[in-house]
């Protein structure tokens, strides 16, 4: 019985002495098991465990960090759920506004803020049947670009319009949505009164011309006039 042992503790001190505990363990601390003696699979298992714990928890943190945002209170929150839903709900006014933003950041350099272009160098967009005419044609121009002499409102221009769509050799890689927004904008601005162009229509045209890798010429676009 335990009490008996306690009663005789001072007669029989058979417990390990503190000094020997220190000595033995400081030896053990620096004694990693060598493969040749006393080697067990345990340390290898432990190495695997430590590595996999670090791996798994890192992935967990990255997956559920929600941008370390102080405003998000649920780790299952997916920012793109709400963002995606919001884009699908854009009103016509918002589409035009987005198109105007794209126009003023890029197109305005050549075609000018008033859509008049630069006489003899850059063709106007206002009142141009290239813009307000068949949507098949204007989509192609924006997606792949345009080169060589063209006739706009009786004046001949000989410049180069770069490719804005996601096409081979295109420098801008605008999404179909962005292309649709900017086209909708120019077709309704400066007195132009053509119908809006949808994102799906742009996608359709892009798919129809997916093998094309160079800008159009006026002659090639005549079928879409």
């Amino acid at each position, binding site marked *: *019985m*335990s*009490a*008996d*042992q*306690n*009663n*005789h*503790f*001072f007669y*029989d*001190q*058979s*417990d*390990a*002495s*503190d*000094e*020997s*505990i*220190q*000595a*033995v*363990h*400081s*030896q*053990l*601390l*620096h*004694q*990693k*098991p060598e493969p040749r*003696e*006393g080697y*067990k699979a*345990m*340390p290898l298992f*432990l190495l695997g*465990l*430590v590595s996999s*714990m670090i791996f*798994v*928890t*890192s992935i*967990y*943190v990255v997956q*559920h*960090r*929600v*941008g*370390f*945002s*102080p*405003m*998000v*209170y*649920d*780790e*299952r*929150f997916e920012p793109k759920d709400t963002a995606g839903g919001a884009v699908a709900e854009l009103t016509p006014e918002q589409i035009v506004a987005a198109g105007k933003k794209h126009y003023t950041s890029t197109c305005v350099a050549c075609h000018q803020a008033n859509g008049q272009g630069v006489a003899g160098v850059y063709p106007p967009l206002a009142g141009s049947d290239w813009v307000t005419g068949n949507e098949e044609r204007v989509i192609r121009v924006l997606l792949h670009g345009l080169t060589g002499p063209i006739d706009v409102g009786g004046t001949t221009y000989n410049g180069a319009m770069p490719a804005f769509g996601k096409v081979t050799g295109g420098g801008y890689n605008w999404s179909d949505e962005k292309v649709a927004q900017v086209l909708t904008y120019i077709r309704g601005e400066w007195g132009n009164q053509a119908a809006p162009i949808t994102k799906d229509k742009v996608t359709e045209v892009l798919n129809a011309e997916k093998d094309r890798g160079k800008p159009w010429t006026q002659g090639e676009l005549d079928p879409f006039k």
Partner: protein
Amino acid sequence: MATDSSLTSELTPERSAKHPEEVSIIDASLRTPLVVLIGSALVWLLIASVLGVVSAWKLHTPAFLDACEFVTYGRVQPAQTNAFIFGWGFNAAFAVSLWLMARLSRGALPGSGVLLLGAVFWNLGVTLGIGGIILGFSTSLEWLEMPGFATPLLLVAYALIGSWSLVVFRAGRSHQIYASQWYLIAALFCFPWIYSVAQVMLVFSPVRGTVQSIIHAWFSSNLFLLWFASIGLAIIYYFLPKLLVKPVSNYYLASLSFWWLVIFGSWAGGARLLGGPVPAWVQTVGTAASFMLVVPLVILGMNHYGTLAGRWSVVKENLSLRFIAFGIVALSLVLVAWVVGAIHGVAQIIQFTHVTTAQIQLGLYGFFSMVVFGALYYIVPRMLDTAWANAPLTTVHFWASALGVVVLVGSLAIGGVEQGLRLADGSIAFAAVTKATLPYLFAATIGFVILAIGQLAFVLNFFWTLSRASAPAVRTMKGLLAAQPEAAR
């Protein structure tokens, strides 16, 4: 492993140690402060046990003692927790850590005046704090309920007491540092850090909004992992090789688990806020850090169970080892529950139910207190130079504590899971859910009563033993140096 068994023969018994007189000199130098610390710890333990029964009783019978404002549930329950943690837990931890540090560093206490002053201040601070809670000055922050006028005194007292562990560490003549000492020193420096941060940011100059709950979760989880668990692990690492006369198995891994626990344990508190009103990334980091506790869980398991393996018959015979082995199992369960509770799906059910209380009780009673009891059964007779006064009382203490912990934690855990499942079911009314927990709360009260009987047996036995002890022989550091002048470094 082979290296372990070859070194077993080098563990020499105390009776044939190189410096046989040293041990008794060290124990004698610690006698007065240890008696004061352990004595006050046990008085607080008794108070906490009684308050525990009262508060548990009120949970299922609210009309019990409801006429007096000083014993309403909102005051008795925090008073119980604080008496248990700061009265019993800290006094006992001071005593045991001082003794462990002195023994392992092989240094005697140069004098005990400041230490005694610290002990008096500490207990004065706890008395003031708990009196403040009873009188209605509680801060209402769990584990920090003590009002602001008591806590600075606690920090001063802590500095007076805690520094002596470092003094004996420095004054000691051992040139090696053992795992127990790592944990003791870590605990020693962690407590003032976490406690002062929590006091300043929550009580004296409260931060705003959800940051409060984050700081609070950080404080309470660190108080357990970096203070109570560290002290408990120091005890386990010391007594396993000592009483089994066998080196700790896979000891070279102990340092890995130590650093792992200190670094990730500090972050694991965020998991206590899962589903709570705090930014998601805090919960995510908390969950990740809690998962990381798997590594120390496995290493501690290899160290502890690997050492115990094949020696269970010794555990059955030895009273101290029985308590410590119980604590080891409880610690494993606490860590497993911590990791599992950090999983989102599990937290959805058990968060904010009685399971949380069950985990805390398992950690503080099942692990920390049991391990400390085991250490005290070894320390007290050596310190007083006499055997325990009554053997049947020790048996009562062990079985009552073990049974009490099982009943208390078991009932709260099962009841809490059922409560969580019912709360998640929208078709059950809230009142019905609460009412369904009544049988479990009643069982928890029975657990508290059984525990109180066990603690009473222990307290009686201690003071009985103390009364039989002879007057202390005056032995100090000078005596130690006189005994072995050649061993002075």
